[in-house]
């Protein structure tokens, strides 16, 4: 069965880049959030297994979402996909529980590799 997936990014293009990289059979069960607040609402009301998360967003940013996930004690694997590639940011999101960090624009093989490494493929 395909896992439940949420893609959170304020850019439509970036969301499509992620969507296009996912296995075909997953695509029907993917939900979309355009900002951090939307993501937290969806995460709270649904059981989401995989979250692809942008960091630099207006309002609640990716860091805010990661903190929210910890606060709500949600069991969700977060893959951060960001243009902010500073090493310190990468360790910060890992410390906040993110499984992996991928730089934008996301590459399909990197994304699939990461999914495989964490047992989703």
């Amino acid at each position, binding site marked *: 069965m395909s896992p439940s997936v949420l893609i959170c990014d*304020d*850019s*439509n*293009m*970036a969301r*499509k*880049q992620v969507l*296009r990289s996912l296995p075909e059979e997953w695509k029907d069960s993917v939900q979309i959030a355009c900002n951090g607040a939307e993501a937290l609402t969806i995460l709270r009301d649904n059981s989401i297994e995989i979250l692809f998360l942008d960091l*630099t*967003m*207006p309002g609640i940013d990716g860091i805010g979402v990661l903190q929210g996930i910890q606060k709500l004690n949600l069991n969700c694997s977060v893959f951060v996909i*960001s*243009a*902010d*590639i*500073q090493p*310190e*940011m990468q360790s910060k999101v890992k410390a906040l529980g993110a499984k992996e960090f991928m730089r*934008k*624009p996301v590459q399909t093989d990197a994304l699939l590799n990461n999914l495989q490494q964490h047992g989703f493929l």
Partner: protein
Amino acid sequence: MNEFHLTEDQQDCLQELINIAMGQASDQLARYLNTFVYLKVPSIESVAAEDLMKTLSQQKNTMAVVSQGFFGFEGIRGEALLVYQEEDSGRIADLLGYEPDELSQDEQLIDISSILTTTFLNVFAQQINNQLSYNAPKLLPNVQEILSEHLQQMPFTWDLALKVNINYQVTDYSFNCNMILLIPETAITNIKHVLDRILEEY
């Protein structure tokens, strides 16, 4: 973005390309300063050629402008201006931690500007399948008098300025600067075609 006449999709696509370019420019700046740079979403707007002087002169306390020319192929060329505010000049010197006798403040500004401009433009160019060369960056002193003259002496006719508002927050300091890209009509047309090509892939 009125003058640019971008569709919503084109605008979103351009913003994303700029975010990625800005992210890498910040990373370079962070490495250079050996610190962490807090990155906000940069806002972009376009300014018609005739309005640019007005826009810039509204910023009364503009301290310095560093100007650097760039050129690629397929008509992509332009001039990048980094515009700093007066109140930020001391902060930038503090931030760089240079001793007074090392580099002059002018040289520091040129250094920072060149890192930001070339990294930003290299990454941007890469994404639109282009490659850029650069002129040496130039600091324009006494900005108010010299800027309009400088803008008129460009080696090309620029029709539109793309203004990227950047706010860099570096640990205890923050400084604002605007990056203004002056680009000719041919470059704009080319960029739009590339945006469409990218969008078609999705």
